[in-house]
C-alpha cells in the first residue's frame, strides 16, 4: 500500500474517530458481551422456568386443585296432603331453592309452574348422605292453598309424600371466598365446551399455550375498530391468569402468563387444561363470594346441574366469560340475550348446531333463578353448628375440603322465628316504653328455640335480635336465671313416688302462706309475684298460678337434693345448689339446655337431647360423621305426664292464659318464667309434637319490669301460630293413670255440692279418698 494512500486512510479513519482495528476490536468485545448476556439471560430464564415449573407442580399437579368451601344444609322438607302452602311460604321456599317460575309448563329440573289450583314442580336431583335422589315432575293439587293431592307427573302415580331438597344455608370459605362446584370434563355437555372454545380461543387445539396468530389477529381487529375489541389470550393463558397470577394488568404479569402457559402446555394434555379452565373460570359474584366454574354458574344462574343445560343456556354461559357482570342474566337480561344470540350465531356459522337448533335456542326465553344471596341466613344457628364442627375438624379442613354438613334446621321455621323475634321485641319496646329503663344503652334482646321433642331435632334457633350488631349467641352461650320456668321440675320431683321424700298429687293441698327458713346463714322468705298469700291451694293451682311460697314448700317437702337431681337428670348441667330458692329458679341455665330439659314433659319422662348436626359428608359422598339421636328415659312416665297435665292448665287458665286470648288454639302446655326484679322473661311451651322456648331480657341484666307472660309469651304465641299447626291430639297417657273428678279448691273428691270440679289425673292408687267437705253430708257425685 502506498504510503500516501495509507496515510490518507488513517487520516480519514482518524477523522471518523476510530481505526479499523479498533472497530474490529469493539465488535468482538460487543459480541462477547452479548454472548455473555445471552448466556446469563438463558441461565436466568432456565432457572426461572424451573421455578415456574415447581410452582406449577406444587399447585396444579395436585389431585385437589381448589380449596372447596364446606356447605351447611338445612333439613329436607316433606310435602304431603294437608299442608298449608301459604303458611309454609311455599313460593319463597322454591325461590330459595333456586327453582324457576317457567310460566305454564315445566320441562326440566328446577322448573315450576303455578296454576289456579295446582303447582307443578320438576324436582332437582340431590345427593343426600344416604341416597342419590333423581328429580322428577310432580303436581301438587291444592284446595284453598292446602295440598290435597300429590301426583308423579311421569308415572301418574299418586304419592302420599314428596320431599324438597335441603337448602344450602351457609358456606365456610377460605379468604378467597370462591364458591365452586368441581366437575370433570365428561360431565360438561359438548355444546358448552364447543361454545367456550369457539368464543374464547378458536385455535385452542392448535397452539402451544400462546397463540401468535391469535395475538396478531386481535391486534389487527383492535386497530380496525380503534378500541380493544379482542384479546389475544388463549384459554391456557386465561387459566394461568386466574389460577396462578393476580388480576392487575402489567407487562411482567403478561410475560409470566405466557411463560407459565407454555410450561403448562408442555406437561399437560389439552383435556386436563380445559377441565381446569372450566372449573376455574370466574363467572360472576354472589354477594361476597365469587361464582367460579361452569358448574357453579349453571347452578346459580339456571338452578341446573351443568349436564342439564340447554343449547341456549350453554351459549349464554360461554358468552358471559368475557364480561360476567355485564351479561349477568339476573341483572341484565337484554344484554345476556344479545350475547347469547351472538354466540349461537357463531355456533351456527361454524356448523356446530343445525338451523333448527339455532332457531330453537334463539327463541328460548331466558328464565334465570331469583337472585338469592346467602348472607346471614340463620346466623346464630350456623355459629352453633360451626362451634360443634370446630371440635371435629380443623378450620383448614372446613375451608378446603368441600364437606357437606346436613343439619336439622327447618329453614322456613327459622325465618319465621327470626321475624317474630325482631317484630316482637320492637313491639314490646314501643308498647312498654313506660316500664322499660329509660335510655338504656343496649337494646332488649330475645331468644327463640324450637325443638321436635320426639327426637330432639333443633328446628329453629335465634340467639339475638340482630346478628350484625351482636354475635353473642344467647340461646347457647348466655347463662340466665330460669325463675319460675324451673318450677315444673319441682313438681316433677314432688309427683314422683320414687324421687320425692313426700309424695304429692295434683290435688294435694299446700299452704300458700309466708314462712321463713334459714339459708346460707340468712333468713329466706319467698314472696308471691302479687305480694299476696293465697291460703290453702292445690298443687295444680300452685303451678298454674306460679305461686312462689307454695312451690318453695313443695320443693322442701319433696327434698331439695331430689329436685336438683331431677334437673340434672333432665340435662341441666350447671351446678344447682340444694337451697330453698332453687325452687324459684335462682341459679343459671343455658336456654338451649332448658329447652332440652322440657322435652321430658311431652315425652312422658324421656329426654331427647337437642341435636343440630345430622351428617358430615365429604365432597365424594363418604359419610364422615353421623350423629346419633340421644333419647333416653330419665324419669318415670307417670310423674312427667301428671306435670304436663297440670301445665296444660297454665295455658288454659293459669299465668299463660293470655295465649288463648291471643288466638292460640289446640292442645298445649307450658310455663311462664319471671326472675326476681324482672330481669328475665321466659315462656317454654309445647304441644305433643313441638316445643318452643322464648326469652326476653337485657344482656347486662338490667331490670325490664316485664313478666314472662307479658314479654315472652306473646313471642311464643306469635311464633307457634305461624310455625306449628294447632294440635288436636292430647298428650298420650302412660299406664296406671286414672282420672277422678276433684273439687278445684280443696282437691277432694267432687260431689253434687261441690260442682266446680276438674277431672284430675292421678297415678292409680294415689287418688284422694275424702269427699269435698264443703257440705255436711258428703255423697258420691
Amino acid at each position: 500500500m502506498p504510503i500516501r494512500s495509507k496515510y490518507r486512510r488513517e487520516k480519514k479513519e482518524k477523522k471518523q474517530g476510530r481505526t479499523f482495528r479498533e472497530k474490529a476490536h469493539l465488535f468482538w468485545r460487543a459480541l462477547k458481551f452479548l454472548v455473555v448476556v445471552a448466556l446469563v439471560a438463558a441461565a436466568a430464564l432456565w432457572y426461572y422456568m424451573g421455578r415456574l415449573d415447581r410452582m406449577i407442580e406444587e399447585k396444579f399437579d395436585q389431585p385437589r386443585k381448589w380449596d372447596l368451601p364446606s356447605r351447611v344444609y338445612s333439613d329436607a322438607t316433606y310435602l304431603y296432603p294437608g299442608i298449608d302452602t301459604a303458611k309454609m311460604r311455599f313460593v319463597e321456599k322454591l325461590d330459595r331453592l333456586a327453582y324457576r317460575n317457567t310460566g305454564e309448563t315445566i320441562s326440566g329440573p328446577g322448573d315450576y309452574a303455578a296454576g289456579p289450583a295446582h303447582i307443578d314442580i320438576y324436582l332437582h336431583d340431590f345427593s343426600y348422605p344416604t341416597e342419590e335422589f333423581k328429580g322428577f315432575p310432580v303436581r301438587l293439587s291444592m284446595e284453598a292453598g292446602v295440598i290435597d293431592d300429590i301426583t308423579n307427573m311421569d308415572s301418574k302415580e299418586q304419592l302420599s309424600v314428596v320431599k324438597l331438597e335441603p337448602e344450602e344455608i351457609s358456606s365456610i370459605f377460605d379468604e378467597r371466598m370462591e364458591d365452586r362446584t368441581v366437575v370433570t370434563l365428561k360431565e360438561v355437555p359438548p355444546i358448552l365446551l364447543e361454545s367456550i372454545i369457539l368464543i374464547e380461543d378458536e385455535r385452542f387445539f392448535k397452539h402451544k399455550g400462546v397463540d401468535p396468530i391469535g395475538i396478531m389477529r386481535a391486534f389487527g381487529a383492535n386497530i380496525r375498530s380503534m378500541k380493544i375489541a379482542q384479546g389475544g389470550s388463549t384459554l391456557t393463558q386465561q387459566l394461568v391468569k386466574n389460577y396462578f397470577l393476580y388480576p392487575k394488568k402489567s407487562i411482567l404479569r403478561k410475560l409470566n402468563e405466557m411463560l407459565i402457559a407454555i410450561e403448562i402446555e408442555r406437561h399437560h394434555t389439552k383435556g386436563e387444561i380445559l377441565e381446569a379452565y372450566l372449573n376455574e373460570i370466574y363467572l360472576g359474584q354472589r354477594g361476597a363470594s365469587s361464582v367460579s366454574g361452569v358448574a357453579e354458574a349453571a347452578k346459580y344462574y339456571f338452578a341446573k346441574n351443568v349436564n342439564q343445560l340447554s343449547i341456549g343456556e350453554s351459549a349464554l354461559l360461554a358468552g358471559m366469560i368475557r364480561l360476567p357482570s355485564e351479561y349477568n342474566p339476573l341483572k341484565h337480561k337484554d344484554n345476556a340475550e344479545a350475547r347469547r344470540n351472538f354466540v349461537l350465531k357463531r355456533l351456527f356459522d361454524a356448523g356446530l348446531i343445525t338451523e333448527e337448533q339455532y332457531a330453537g335456542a334463539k327463541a328460548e326465553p331466558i328464565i334465570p333463578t331469583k337472585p338469592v344471596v346467602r348472607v346471614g341466613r340463620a346466623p346464630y344457628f350456623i355459629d352453633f353448628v360451626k362451634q360443634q364442627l370446630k371440635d371435629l375438624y380443623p378450620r383448614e379442613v372446613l375451608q378446603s375440603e368441600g364437606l357437606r354438613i346436613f343439619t336439622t334446621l327447618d329453614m322456613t321455621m327459622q325465618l319465621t322465628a327470626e321475624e317474630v323475634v325482631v317484630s316482637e321485641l320492637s313491639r314490646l319496646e314501643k308498647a312498654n316504653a313506660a316500664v322499660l329503663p329509660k335510655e338504656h344503652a343496649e337494646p332488649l334482646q330475645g331468644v327463640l328455640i324450637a325443638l321436635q321433642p320426639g327426637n330432639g331435632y333443633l328446628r329453629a334457633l335465634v340467639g339475638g335480635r340482630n346478628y350484625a350488631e351482636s354475635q353473642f349467641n344467647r340461646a347457647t352461650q348466655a347463662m340466665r336465671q330460669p325463675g319460675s320456668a324451673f318450677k315444673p321440675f319441682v313438681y316433677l320431683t314432688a309427683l314422683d313416688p320414687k324421687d320425692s321424700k313426700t309424695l304429692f298429687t295434683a290435688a294435694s293441698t299446700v299452704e300458700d302462706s309466708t314462712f321463713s327458713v334459714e339459708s346460707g346463714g340468712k333468713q329466706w322468705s319467698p314472696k308471691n309475684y302479687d305480694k299476696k298469700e293465697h291460703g290453702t291451694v292445690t298443687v295444680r293451682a300452685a303451678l298454674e298460678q306460679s305461686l312462689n311460697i307454695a312451690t318453695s314448700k313443695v320443693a322442701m317437702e319433696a327434698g331439695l337434693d331430689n329436685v336438683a337431681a331431677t334437673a340434672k337428670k333432665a340435662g341441666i348441667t350447671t351446678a344447682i345448689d340444694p337451697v330453698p330458692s332453687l325452687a324459684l329458679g335462682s341459679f343459671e341455665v343455658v336456654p338451649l339446655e332448658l329447652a332440652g330439659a322440657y322435652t321430658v314433659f311431652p315425652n312422658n319422662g324421656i329426654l331427647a337431647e337437642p341435636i343440630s348436626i345430622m351428617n358430615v359428608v365429604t365432597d365424594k359422598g363418604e359419610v364422615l360423621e353421623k350423629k346419633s339421636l340421644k333419647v333416653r328415659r330419665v324419669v318415670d312416665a307417670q310423674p312427667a305426664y301428671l306435670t304436663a297435665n297440670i301445665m296444660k292448665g297454665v295455658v288454659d287458665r293459669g299465668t299463660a292464659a293470655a295465649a288463648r286470648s291471643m288466638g292460640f288454639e289446640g292442645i298445649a302446655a307450658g310455663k311462664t318464667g319471671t326472675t326476681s326484679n324482672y330481669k328475665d322473661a321466659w315462656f317454654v311451651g309445647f304441644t305433643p309434637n313441638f316445643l318452643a322456648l322464648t326469652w326476653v331480657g337485657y344482656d347486662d341484666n338490667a331490670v325490664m319490669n316485664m313478666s314472662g307472660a307479658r314479654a315472652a309469651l306473646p313471642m311464643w304465641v306469635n311464633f307457634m301460630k305461624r310455625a306449628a299447626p294447632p294440635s288436636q291430639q292430647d298428650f298420650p297417657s302412660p299406664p296406671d293413670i286414672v282420672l277422678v273428678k276433684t273439687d278445684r279448691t280443696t282437691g277432694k273428691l267432687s260431689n253434687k255440692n261441690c260442682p266446680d270440679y276438674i277431672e284430675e289425673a292421678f297415678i292409680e292408687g294415689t287418688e284422694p279418698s275424702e269427699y269435698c267437705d264443703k257440705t255436711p253430708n258428703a255423697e258420691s257425685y
Partner: protein
Amino acid sequence: MKRTARLLSIFLTLFTCLTFAACPPAAKKPPAKAQPKTKPGEAIKKTGEVSRPAAPAAVMTPQRKASDSLVEKGKTALSSKNYDDAAQIFQNAVNVDGSNGTAYYYLALTNHYMGQERTAAGLLDKAESLLRSDKQWMEKIDELRSLVTGEKPPVAPLPPIADEY
C-alpha cells in the same frame, strides 16, 4: 409462759366461737305441711268415680299416611341391613308425624341393631306411650324391650320385620 398460755386460751376460745358460728343451724321446718300426702308407695283407698284417659287413637290423617309411607320405605332399608338409611328415614317419619308410634318402634329397632341400646330403650318407651291401646303392638314392644334390656340374648340373624297392625 403465763402470757403465752393466756394468748393460746384466747385464740382457742375465738377459734371455737368462729367454728360454731360458721356451722349452719338446723333448718327450721316450714310452718304448714302439705295435705293430703302419702309416703312413697303408700296407696290411698279409692272411693271416687274413676275413669282412664283415652288412649291415643290411630287416626289416619294425611300426615299419618305420609309418615307411614316413610315407615314402609324405612322397613325396606332395614331389611336390606342399611341401618343408616333406615334410621334417617324413620327419623323423617317421626318429623312428619311425631305421634306415629310405629315410626318410633322401628327407629328403636334400628337403634337396637346399631347397638344404641339406651336410645333404643328411650324410643321404645315413646312408642309404647303412643301404641298402648294396641295389644299386638304392645307384645312386639315388650319383645323388643327384652332384647334391648338384655333380658333375652340378641337374635341372630335379624328378627323378621313386623307387619303392620
